């Protein structure tokens, strides 16, 4: 039996496609020839909805975009609105936003770690990663009552203050994460099976990565130093001291190491923010019905998945004229074919996992 070219279909229901994603594959005896992702199964018409809601009503809907890291969506949209309306947020609120955003980055990367390890077969790492993530979600729950779609960053500042008890709790959580991470690293980092499935798999060079518009950890794994927290700092990120980990080979293993290192750097940033938390208000008074003069902005932040951007055009009323979201996973997914070409069929799952996509963000 000689197979020449088979067309295979992964999804939309499949245990490893991280949501409802369909991948049309053409394989030749296990080697991948073509990959075509088909998206749109989770399309909810967000952008149309946003044109019919006030600026403040849009914020909780942004939670549902990248639902693994909802605070970063909140932050991206809210910063764009504040730039548009010329709202200046107090320093304490900016620091609290950094704490929340970096804790969210931690939670997002831990979830990613679990999913990716599970796809490659190390089932226990899924549970270990989620155990660590639970501690962070409990902090969010104590902060504003929600674990997943958090809506913890609002226009003008943050809804609640971080009191002493919550700060102590966050510190305790941060102390506990490195131990869990060490467990996971001991299981995977130098494991022959893990390395055999990730080293040299799904490589993309730096120039090809920029060509495809890749952003976030996959781009940094190819050696490109691009982190908006350093290049175009927002929300007081320039007041913190942290490193941007870079990879060398741009393969799945490098993306894995980069995200692990980003977890450590995020812990560092949160500790600095908590140590230097300034006095002041946690938010500025924003009118209940916010009317914005006609203008437009395009603002980007470094979300856990990549560069997240919001374009907002205002028309003088309380509802935006147009809101467009630039989703990092949408653009990153386009490079999947390039990364998968020439690799084996079993690697597709690993490469897709290393891209860290969320369908909510892709499909809006």
């Amino acid at each position, binding site marked *: 039996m000689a197979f020449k070219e*088979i067309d*295979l279909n992964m999804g939309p229901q*499949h*245990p*490893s496609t991280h949501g409802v994603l369909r991948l049309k594959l053409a394989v030749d005896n*296990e080697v991948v020839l073509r990959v075509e992702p088909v998206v749109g199964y989770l399309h909810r018409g967000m952008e149309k909805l946003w044109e019919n809601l006030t600026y403040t009503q849009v914020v909780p809907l942004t939670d549902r975009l990248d639902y693994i890291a909802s605070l970063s969506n909140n932050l991206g949209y809210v910063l764009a609105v504040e730039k548009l309306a010329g709202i200046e947020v107090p320093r304490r609120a900016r620091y609290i936003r950094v704490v929340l955003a970096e804790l969210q980055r931690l939670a997002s990367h831990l979830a990613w770690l679990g999913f990716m*390890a*599970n*796809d*490659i*077969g*190390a*089932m*226990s790492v*899924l*549970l*270990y990663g989620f*155990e660590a993530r639970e501690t962070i979600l409990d902090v969010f729950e104590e902060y504003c009552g929600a674990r997943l779609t958090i809506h913890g960053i609002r226009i003008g500042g943050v809804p609640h203050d971080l009191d002493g008890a919550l700060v102590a709790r966050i510190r305790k959580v941060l102390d506990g994460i490195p131990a869990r991470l060490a467990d996971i690293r001991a*299981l*995977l980092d130098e*494991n022959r*099976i*893990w390395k*055999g*499935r990730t080293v040299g798999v799904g490589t993309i060079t730096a120039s090809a990565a920029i060509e495809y518009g890749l952003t976030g950890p996959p781009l940094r794994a190819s050696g490109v130093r691009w982190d908006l927290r350093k290049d175009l700092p927002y929300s007081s990120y320039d007041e913190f001291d942290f490193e941007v980990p870079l990879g060398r080979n741009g393969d799945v293993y490098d993306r894995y190491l980069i995200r692990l290192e980003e977890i450590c750097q995020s812990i560092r940033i949160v500790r600095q923010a908590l140590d230097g938390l300034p006095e002041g208000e946690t938010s500025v008074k924003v009118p209940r019905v916010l009317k914005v003069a006609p203008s437009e902005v395009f603002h980007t932040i470094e979300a856990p998945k990549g560069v997240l951007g919001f374009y907002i055009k205002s028309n003088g009323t309380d509802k935006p004229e147009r809101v467009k979201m630039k989703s990092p996973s949408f653009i990153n997914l386009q490079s999947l074919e390039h990364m998968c070409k020439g690799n*084996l*069929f*079993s*690697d597709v*799952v690993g490469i897709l996992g290393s891209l860290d996509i969320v369908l909510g963000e892709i499909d809006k």
Partner: protein
Amino acid sequence: MTPFVAEVLIPVGKVVAVILYPMVMVVVMIWLERRVVALMQGRLGPNRVGFQGLLQPVADAVKLFFKENIMQRQADTFLFNVSPVLVMFSSLLAFCFVPLGEPIMLGSYNLTLWIAESPVGLLIILGLSSISVFGVIFGGWASNSKYPLMGALRSVVQVLSYEIPIGLTVLTVVFVARSMDLVEIVRRQEASGVWYGFLMPVSFVVFWISGIAETNRAPFDLPEAESELVAGYHTEYSGMKFAFFYMAEYAHMVLVSSLVVILFFGGWLPPFPSVKALSFLHAAPGFVWYLVKIMFFLYLYVWIRATFPRYRFDSLIRLVWKWFVPLSLLNFLAVALGRFLL
């Protein structure tokens, strides 16, 4: 002891025991796997059905029994139905030749703890367990779907490739024991005072790892990996047929563990026979020791599953052809040389 009892009842009883023994072990394994893997992952696992969840396998069996028997219209009906049977059949039949202990004297009757003893018992067991390959390929083909077919092909290549190191390592044991009769092999280990697992550790390690690959267990479970091919060659099966594949896999695991214990770890022999201080260990019958050792290897199966990621298929095949086959050949030569010189 009347002839009726000795010639009819006891053999029938032994056959029933042979069928029940792997089935009971399967039930135990289902529970063990789910609880142990759960506890290793920091969660509890099934602990509500019965004491500590011990009735969970019963609940699973009842559930599977009542599930709808789905079959595609284009599936090859005969092969589709026969493949779970083949896989189960090959595992169970091999148990006929697995001895469980030294014969027990019941009055004047010598009760042997096996159904059949053959001078080539080891060979027969290896041959019988290879029949399961047919079941796999029939199942994959008859499902008339791409994923099961690919899974079946991979599984067949994997099993056939790993038969070679198994054969070679088993040969080293046969060389040292000068017999292919499993009962003889254990008696030789008793006579020589050292278990073959310690005498030939390379053989043991290669046999154990190849055994894991033979049974399609993690980290060699790519043919049935959920995240890649949904469920490999048994994707299209549901209900009792799926249960058969599932149970056959566990039965095969028990068979491999039994072989490891008999060939390399002294079967039903208690450890440290020459140490006077530990002579209380001899109080337990051989069968108990045998079970303890098998349980240890079954636990090892589960432990390995919970820990390691999955081998990609080409790495798996590269491992056997580039490493295990040459290693087992060299090992065989070394053992042969040793036997010749000593």
